[in-house]
């Protein structure tokens, strides 16, 4: 049973979604405005937060921005259909994924499961194979899902963590966008989906360049990304 928070100002919709999601195995808390959503998200422990962009008091972006200063809980943004800018803004401030609303509840559940899979603790067997991955100045602790840069812990969303993990596993090799999307985000790449690019861009900002000034994650135009092996 996953405990999640659903923040949407449409009360009727939220009620129906609670019913739908509970049948899919989620325990859903609801909030109908931004302030309440932020309050609940900070005070309680959720495995996932679903944030609608259009909300009274505080909009979804503001909630996410303030939430990210305190918590790295996975967040799925519900953006208005056709507002492509919204989705980019959302990912930029640290959302794990976004969905254009209105959407089929089945699709919503699929996205939720993909995010939850990413943030799930690694199984015992996987942990034993390579608990700690160290490449240059960066250390990835798989058990704790922690990233240390020069022994300093970095905060990142679980999606960013997954993207970094895949890139580090294949450090020195080019990972195609399609491959990265499937392995890190758990979904197929959409041709004009900027999500992956945004996650990589966030990672670059958090990690900075290598000690010798070289770019840490290189863009291989038309193919994908490559983590520079020092």
């Amino acid at each position, binding site marked *: 049973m996953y405990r999640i928070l659903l923040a949407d100002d*449409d009360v009727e919709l939220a009620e129906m979604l609670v019913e739908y999601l509970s049948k899919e195995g989620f325990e859903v808390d609801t909030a109908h405005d931004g302030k309440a959503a932020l309050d609940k998200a900070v005070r309680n422990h959720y495995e996932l937060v679903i944030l609608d962009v259009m909300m009274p008091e505080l909009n979804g972006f503001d909630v996410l921005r303030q939430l990210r200063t305190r918590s790295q809980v996975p967040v799925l943004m519900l953006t208005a259909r*056709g507002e492509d800018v919204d989705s980019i803004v959302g990912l930029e401030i640290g959302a794990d994924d976004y969905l254009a609303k209105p959407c089929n509840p089945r699709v919503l559940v699929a996205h939720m499961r993909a995010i939850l899979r990413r943030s799930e603790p690694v199984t015992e067997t996987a942990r034993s194979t390579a608990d700690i991955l160290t490449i240059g100045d960066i250390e990835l602790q798989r058990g704790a899902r922690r990233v240390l840069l020069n022994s300093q812990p970095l905060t990142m969303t679980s999606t960013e963590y997954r993207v970094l993990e895949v890139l580090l596993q294949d450090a020195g090799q080019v990972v195609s966008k399609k491959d990265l999307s499937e392995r890190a985000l758990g979904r197929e790449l959409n*041709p004009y989906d900027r999500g992956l690019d945004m996650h990589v861009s966030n990672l670059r900002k958090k990690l900075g360049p290598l000690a010798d000034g070289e770019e840490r994650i290189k863009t291989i135009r038309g193919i994908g990304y490559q983590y520079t092996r020092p």
Partner: protein
Amino acid sequence: MKSLFWKIFVSFWLALILFAGLTLWVTSHYLEKVRNETSNTQPRINTINYIRQARDFAHSGNVEALRHWLRQLDQREAIPYLLIDEKGNDLLKRPVPLYLQQRVLRKERRYRHDDDDDDDDDDDEHKHRPPHHRPIIINGQRYHLMPDFRSVTLNRVLNRPRVIAIPILLAALISALVCLLLARYLTAPISRLRQATQKLASGDLNQRVSASMGSRKDEIVELANDFDHMAEQLQTLIESHKQLLRDASHELRSPLARLQVALGLAQQRGDSTTIRELDRIERETERLNELIGQLLSLARLETLAEIEREPIALDTLLKDIADDAAYEAQASNRDVKIIHSMPVVINSNRVLLSSALENAIRNAIRYTAENTSVEIFLQNDSEKSNWIVIKIRDHGPGIPEEMRESIFEPFVRVGEARDRQSGGYGLGLAIAKRAIDLHGGEISAANEDEGLSIIIHLPVNDS
């Protein structure tokens, strides 16, 4: 003088009067000055010089050279200089005015009178007088060089422009300055208006001009006020349009979102008697959802004037979209193939360009016959350098020739039979057209031997 009409009229009129008046005044002043010198006992320095020069010629005895010099002097000077002999005739046979004849005769009489006193000492006698009063002696004949001040006419002055060149030039410069200032005064606010209009056209609706017009009150300021009013109206209109769009989209989406969840709940319950109808409702809901999305993107594209661009590898983008579309097309025994491609980086908006290409390709899939492929060509434009062409060709029924333009308009239907199975062109091509327009490109349709080609021309920017 509030009106621009009167400003222009009066200032041009004044400038003309000023110039004509100044010219007249300068010339008449000159004439006046010259004539007054007749009474002046002190002859002009010029006259003394000329007498000296004439005497030099006379001493050398070269009468022809003297005549030549005299003719040149006449052409140069506004005042006629006459060389008059004892009988009152000019050396160049020019008519001699009576007053000069009399003066020469008077001089001669006085001279003869003096002469009678002392016949022997001719030279001595002459030394009593200043040199310019002494006659010039040519071949024994005695001549006097006399400036004929009274014969200075306007015609003579104007035929010798050197004489009054400087004052006229000054008058021209002053009037040029006046006209320049006037022209500046008239055109400065017009170019300000033009700038504002250009900015307004490129989407900056906050442009206002009245404030920059200063304290003037004329037609231009009225135009500026009208411009501001227009910009105001335009801004309100576009803002209310956008507001309506936002509100409508929100309002349309909310019930649709609820409908989808309600449908999901019904499907979860899994009542086998209604499962087929529920699936049908789901399909139609998706279609409605897609349509609302398209309608909103088209509406947004219509209000967009500028797009954000970034360098995009067009060949890769096209391949990604084609692969994606092929995957879906294969479900209905159709395919999408890239026949020709080449590496191109194009400065463009990824979202808009993708949606244009995707709409055109999906449209082609919808119309191409079963077991055929949609063929895509990406190549250099053979007519325009630095342009590329993307051709998307289907093997379908094509369209009536007269509809080649109109299929890019929203909700245009080609034929009854066709639409029932395909759902019509809807908004896809309208969105594609608008997106391509925003990139400065062109989109057109052409019937092939079998099927239809959508042809997209795009400029490749260097950056």
